[in-house]
């Protein structure tokens, strides 16, 4: 015990950041903790952070196993390069934290699981109206030119979450994770007060618990998009007919979107004890939709109610498709 204490006193915390299939917002979120970044800098050495410091993959490869105390990994796993780095960083890190919705459950890049690699390439490199590609070139893993062979990482057919590739110790949810969740997590790491392995470093409650709006009995007559509301009333979005993922989403965000008069889109991910965020929300929404006069409604009228939900996957699985029960579209 004593040895450990002196160790932590003498040696700064060794941390690393990596981004895989993500937008870069999680990297910015690290700086969103404002002046607390100075505490991090005082307590830690950053060994690897491609977006901010000039370190190479070979530097990581040269490290001894478990050199990194904590690695924050954001982004889903979509290419062979990302998979390689996930495996590498797992080996070199004592604690691996899945940072943000993409690494936890696929996030927005995970919605690509609605299509195959061929479909994605066709749209991105051939059919897109703003794309000019007369030679119909699409990315290949290797190509021979006269100077030699050029290679690219393989683009996988299916987006995976980080924990579908390697063992993950902690999950820090959000798109991106809120600054207070990050500082709490870093604080827990520095003070060695982390919860049991596998924990999600966020509250156990749903977003509704933190939302500012008043909630009463929910009954929706029809579904509306936010722009179709004449006036945003000071009450629950669901009661106003707008689909809000709050009831099926883990809290931690302090209801920031609702504070800005926008409904929750579900970036906090799964609630504890739920297997599938989208299906939970489908159950919740269908149970309050067109409840008034339901006993006199014909089946066609019910069909019309359901028809109002336009984009089922995009609405209910915006951040969790690769982690859901049906994690990709079945290709014929």
């Amino acid at each position, binding site marked *: 015990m004593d040895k450990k204490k002196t160790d932590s006193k003498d040696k700064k915390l060794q941390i690393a950041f990596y981004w895989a299939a993500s937008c870069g917002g999680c990297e910015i979120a690290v700086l969103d903790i404002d002046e607390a970044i100075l505490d991090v800098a005082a307590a830690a050495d950053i060994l690897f952070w491609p977006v901010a410091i000039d370190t190479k993959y070979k530097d990581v490869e040269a490290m001894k196993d478990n050199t990194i105390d904590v690695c924050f990994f954001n982004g889903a796993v979509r290419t062979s390069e990302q998979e390689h780095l996930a495996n590498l960083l797992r080996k070199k890190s004592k604690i691996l934290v899945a940072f943000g919705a993409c690494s936890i459950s696929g996030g927005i890049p995970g919605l690509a699981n*609605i299509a195959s690699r061929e479909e994605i390439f066709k749209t991105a490199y051939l059919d897109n109206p703003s794309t000019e590609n007369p030679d119909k070139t699409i990315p290949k893993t290797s190509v021979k030119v006269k100077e030699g062979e050029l290679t690219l990482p393989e683009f996988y057919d*299916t987006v995976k979450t980080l924990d*579908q590739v390697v063992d993950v110790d902690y999950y820090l949810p959000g798109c991106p994770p809120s600054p207070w969740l990050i500082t709490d997590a870093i604080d827990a790491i520095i003070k060695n007060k982390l919860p049991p392995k596998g924990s999600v470093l966020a509250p156990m409650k749903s977003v509704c618990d933190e939302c500012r709006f008043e909630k009463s009995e929910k009954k929706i007559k029809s579904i509306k998009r936010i722009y179709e509301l004449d006036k945003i009333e000071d009450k629950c979005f669901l009661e106003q007919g707008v689909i809000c993922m709050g009831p099926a989403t883990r809290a931690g965000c302090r209801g920031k979107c609702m504070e800005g008069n926008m409904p929750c889109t579900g970036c906090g991910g799964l609630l504890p004890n*739920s*297997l*599938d965020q*989208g*299906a*939970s929300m*489908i*159950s919740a*929404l*269908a*149970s309050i*939709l*067109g*409840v008034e006069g*339901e*006993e006199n*409604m014909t*089946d066609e009228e*019910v*069909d019309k*109610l*359901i028809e109002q*939900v336009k984009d*089922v*996957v995009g609405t*209910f699985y915006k951040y969790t498709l690769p982690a*859901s*029960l*049906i*994690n*990709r*579209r*079945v*290709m*014929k």
Partner: protein
Amino acid sequence: MTEFEPNIIGFLCNWCSYAGADLAGTSRMKYPPNIKSIRVMCSGRVDTVFILDALKKGADGVLVAGCHPGDCHYQSGNYKTNRRIKLLKKLLGDMGVEPRRVRFEYISASEGQKFAKVVTDFVDELKKMGPNPLKTLQD
């Protein structure tokens, strides 16, 4: 080659459909043995997560059966389930799984005959559809 035998999970409500299935049994009606019945207190208890989980774990079809409209023991559970399953079917269609693998039926306690017919029809339909494609999907 042996014929494909679909595996069906049935969620039957305690007050109507399970009693209907019981009636089919006690009346010695014949229906295929492909269905594994799970009694729930109300069809409204069936979360869409249960249905997806059943499909994910290899069920070729899922039957949810509840009381006729107006007969629900808890007044409105069957209406909720009807909506949920309609919305779930939209999801299944988008994900490339035949929505007809999930079926919602109103079966009362006196409709043993209907229960036997629904199961027979469902088995025939699933035999035509073939095995659930999610079985072979990677995890």
